[in-house]
């Protein structure tokens, strides 16, 4: 029988580092917003990349997904990512078409 007890190996120091990294990434996002050197589409791309990194830190360390069995980790990651990829393909390509072609 699989062990279903609650055991996580990360230390308090690891959690503090992750928390500090999350705050730092948030600060980078705020600075980017204040500088406003990127176009809306590029800004969106950069912010999304930073948000995905933050989401990864939260799920892997705070939600302990990295301590789960690989099959659970991959099933959750792949299924949710696939759904978001479908949304991305349909929504953003169309939004970009409106901007590029000037369709109203």
């Amino acid at each position, binding site marked *: 029988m*699989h062990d279903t007890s609650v055991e996580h190996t990360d230390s308090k120091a690891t959690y503090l580092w992750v928390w500090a990294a999350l*705050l730092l990434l948030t600060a980078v996002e705020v600075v980017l917003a204040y500088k406003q050197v990127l176009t809306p589409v590029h800004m969106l791309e950069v912010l999304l990349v930073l948000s995905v990194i933050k989401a990864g830190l939260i799920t892997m360390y705070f939600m302990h997904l990295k301590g789960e069995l690989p*099959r659970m980790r991959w099933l959750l990651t792949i*299924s949710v990512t696939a759904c978001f990829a479908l949304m991305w393909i349909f929504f953003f390509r169309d939004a970009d078409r409106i901007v590029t072609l000037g369709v109203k």
Partner: protein
Amino acid sequence: MATVQHVVHDTQGEFEPSLFGTYSKKIGMWLFLASDSLTFGALLFAYSYGRISNPDWPTPFNGDSIRNATIMTACLLSSSLTMVLAVMAANRGDKPWIRNWLLATMFFGAAFTVLHGMEWTHLIENKMTTSGNPWSSVPLFGGTFFTLTGMHMLHVTIGVIYLGVIALRKKFLPILLALWLIGWLATPADSVFHVGIHVLLVGAIISAIVLFLKPKDYDAHDVEVSGLYWHFVDLVWMFIFPLVYLMSTKV
């Protein structure tokens, strides 16, 4: 005469092993969170679609709004840290510290909700509604903004109630009812929060049903599962903050 068979549920090897190597409650919460992430995903895509396909999209968030939203983000990130420390305390069976860390998490969550409420009040005072705003001719802004952030605020409120039940059990019910009454009496009758505060009353009724029908001493598994929900609420904000606030900044 029929014999009575006693089923012993806690015997090792009585059931098939878990496919995912963990307990059912946690798998159930992960499945719920996966489905909930799609709800938020759809709302975020709707907002972002409107944002990049409308050159006239309003940018109402000035320096004060961004400062407020940054403090809100720090509150949620700090609440995630205290939550994970509560899970650590639960793993070593340290009941006083489970409660202390959970109460700290609830404090940060409540602070987030209050700050968010202030932000909403400011926007509503500036004549922003679900179908219009004074800054541009794009009516979608108010609708997508209030739906997305309102949905998230509701999740945070439910999370605070959930943690309160885990931390204080039945002792939390009078506190929750007192907060509802104070909030209801303190908000003006024409404020959206005068109606919204009833979420606390509904939460108190549901919590009372759960606590009285199935009273139990919540264990490490319950703390960990409630933590998964709380971290998810934090995770969603990590997308809302940049996509909604930082993408519509005017500084």
